[in-house]
């Protein structure tokens, strides 16, 4: 315990030292937001927009136009920033969706503890991301031009391999201080943070009903500070996976529009590692390995949670344009909802034909699986593909639940591994298959729209496959080692008699349902 405290104190001090290193702010950073958005943000905004030369040349002959260009540029940035922030708020609300879905699908005696993990992951993840996660992930990203700049995020640690630069992690933005104290960068932080927290909350589902709150909190800091940001940097922060196109001709490099791999695979693979180290709930598996069903205690709560997730997903996917003025947002939103419908319907029909009844808990999982699978390709596919991706996701989900339970012998109370891990991978592959060439010109520094295998380009699929393999290896190895080591320092699992009685009072000092007689 003392060793833990010393280590944590030392780590925080070290990060503080790194954080205050850029003691003076960058001249380009503007915490007030007053100078953000100007005439230069009009340049190239639309196909018919003025060029930089146009504006320079007009200064003498049309002074009013130049002043108006300044306001127009400001408003363009404002629309985009408002869009990004609002969508970020929607994604934040998904935390409630996860909390209700997980608690509804697990037992009443643990409801307080399950809700508590989903609640606490928000502040813990946020603070970890604020301390160093955001800096590692986006510190070298170059900012986001659509919401006004953020160019202070210009430090990416790279290594040189095969004659090309491989970005590994960023190093600007610790504690959102120094040059990171900027209105644009703060907006970026909010948007990125809520995505990170979606990842952080996924393993709480697979590890519910037997995880100690203390080790969960330590996990929350670890995943938000290091694991999520590093892979996130590789795909979204300008790192080596995103430059596979520019450097080696693999399509547009790895594309993951809203995070099938960055968010959902990372969460799902971490959940596998955690569930393996933690072990199944008592009574889940018999001595001969056959599983026992442990029904959730509150189906209305669980399904409401799934609806809240679907609602937040509009922010998740459509917000990832990072621009309200990017009018692909309607296509993105519709593809998102269509995939959810496809997933729900296919999982319903699957269970109906296989077991005679449409099991609503599987349908809810299939609904989410469709959403996870469309998260990467949502901006690049047409509606028929979106429905198809969702339909396949729903069927994959059902098979995955059986595979995880019966073959891998892992206890996943809410299906998190099957929803997020398996279908996150499917979403990445689906992009490489179904991208139809109607969007994406210039992404990751590669000219031309994004095309998948079925539309004439197999190199995008290659990039996507590299990302899937990289994510599985990186996240599993790191998280498995982390959980194993953590288990030696403080037990991951609650004591057996505590688990039989329910975790609520012992772990989080409350009973979820004190006035009710509940089964224990």
């Amino acid at each position, binding site marked *: 315990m003392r060793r833990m405290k010393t280590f944590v104190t030392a780590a925080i001090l070290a990060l503080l030292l790194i954080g205050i290193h850029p003691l003076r702010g960058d001249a380009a950073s503007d915490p007030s937001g007053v100078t953000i958005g100007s005439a230069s943000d009009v340049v190239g905004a639309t196909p018919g927009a003025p060029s930089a030369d146009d504006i320079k040349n007009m200064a003498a002959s049309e002074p009013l136009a130049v002043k108006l260009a300044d306001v127009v540029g400001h408003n363009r940035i404002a629309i985009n920033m408002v869009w990004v922030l609002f969508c970020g708020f929607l994604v934040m609300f998904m935390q409630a969706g996860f909390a209700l879905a997980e608690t509804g699908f697990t037992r009443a005696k643990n409801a307080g503890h399950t809700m508590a993990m989903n609640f606490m992951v928000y502040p813990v993840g946020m603070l970890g991301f604020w301390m160093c996660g955001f800096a590692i992930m986006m510190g070298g990203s170059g900012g986001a031009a659509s919401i006004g700049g953020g160019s202070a995020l210009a430090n990416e640690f790279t290594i040189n391999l095969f004659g090309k630069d491989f970005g590994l992690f960023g190093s600007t933005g610790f504690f959102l201080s120094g040059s990171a104290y900027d209105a644009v960068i703060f907006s970026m932080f909010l948007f990125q943070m809520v995505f990170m927290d979606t990842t952080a909350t996924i393993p709480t589902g697979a590890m519910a009903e037997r995880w100690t709150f203390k080790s969960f909190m330590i996990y929350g800091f670890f995943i938000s500070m290091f694991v999520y940001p590093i892979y996130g940097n590789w795909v979204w922060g300008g790192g080596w996976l995103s430059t596979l196109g520019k450097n080696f001709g693999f399509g547009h490099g790895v594309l993951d529009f809203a995070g099938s791999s960055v968010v959902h695979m990372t969460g799902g693979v971490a959940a596998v590692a955690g569930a393996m180290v933690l072990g199944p709930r008592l009574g889940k598996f018999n001595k001969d390995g056959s599983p026992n069903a442990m029904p959730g205690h509150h189906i209305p709560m669980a399904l409401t949670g799934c609806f809240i997730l679907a609602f937040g997903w509009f922010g998740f996917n459509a917000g990832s344009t990072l621009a309200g003025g990017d009018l692909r947002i309607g296509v993105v939103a519709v593809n998102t909802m269509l995939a959810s419908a496809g997933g729900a319907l296919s999982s319903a029909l699957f269970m109906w034909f296989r077991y005679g009844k449409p099991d609503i808990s*599987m349908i809810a999982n299939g609904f989410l699986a469709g959403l996870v699978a469309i998260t990467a390709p949502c901006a690049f596919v047409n509606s028929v593909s979106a429905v198809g991706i969702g339909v396949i996701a729903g069927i994959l989900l059902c098979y995955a639940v059986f595979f995880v339970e019966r073959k891998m012998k892992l206890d996943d109370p809410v299906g998190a591994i099957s929803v997020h891990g398996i279908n996150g991978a499917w979403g990445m592959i689906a992009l490489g298959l179904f991208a139809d060439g109607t969007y994406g010109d210039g992404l990751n520094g590669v000219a031309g729209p994004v095309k998948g295998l079925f539309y004439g380009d197999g190199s995008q699929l290659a990039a996507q496959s590299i990302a899937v393999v990289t994510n599985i290896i990186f996240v599993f190895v790191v998280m498995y080692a982390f959980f194993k080591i953590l288990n030696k320092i403080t037990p991951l699992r609650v004591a057996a008699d505590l688990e039989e009685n329910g975790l609520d009072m012992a772990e989080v000092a409350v009973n979820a349902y004190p006035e009710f007689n509940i089964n224990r």
Partner: protein
Amino acid sequence: MKKIEAIIRTHKLEDVKNALTVAGVQGMTISHVEGFGRQKGHQEIYRGTEVKVSFVPKIKIVAVVQDAMLEKALTAIVDNAQTGKVGDGKIFVSDVAEVVRIRTGERGEVAI
């Protein structure tokens, strides 16, 4: 004085209660219970895995009646709780040694 413990289907409670009241039974206590008889519960499937539901929810009615009232009460229960299908329930009758009305302290049959 006799104690009647009747285990019946949950949705038959209103019918049985009304019939007992009409028959002259003044009061009763109910509890929510689970159990099985020769019905032995039933099989369900949750997420592709069998759930063996051994215990089926039932309602237990406890009523204490005068000896003269017993047959009328039993008939009221059986007629209204019956569906003809396995799981209709059972009635247990036992002797009661003493009854006390707490408000007044009365004892015996007058306290029922």
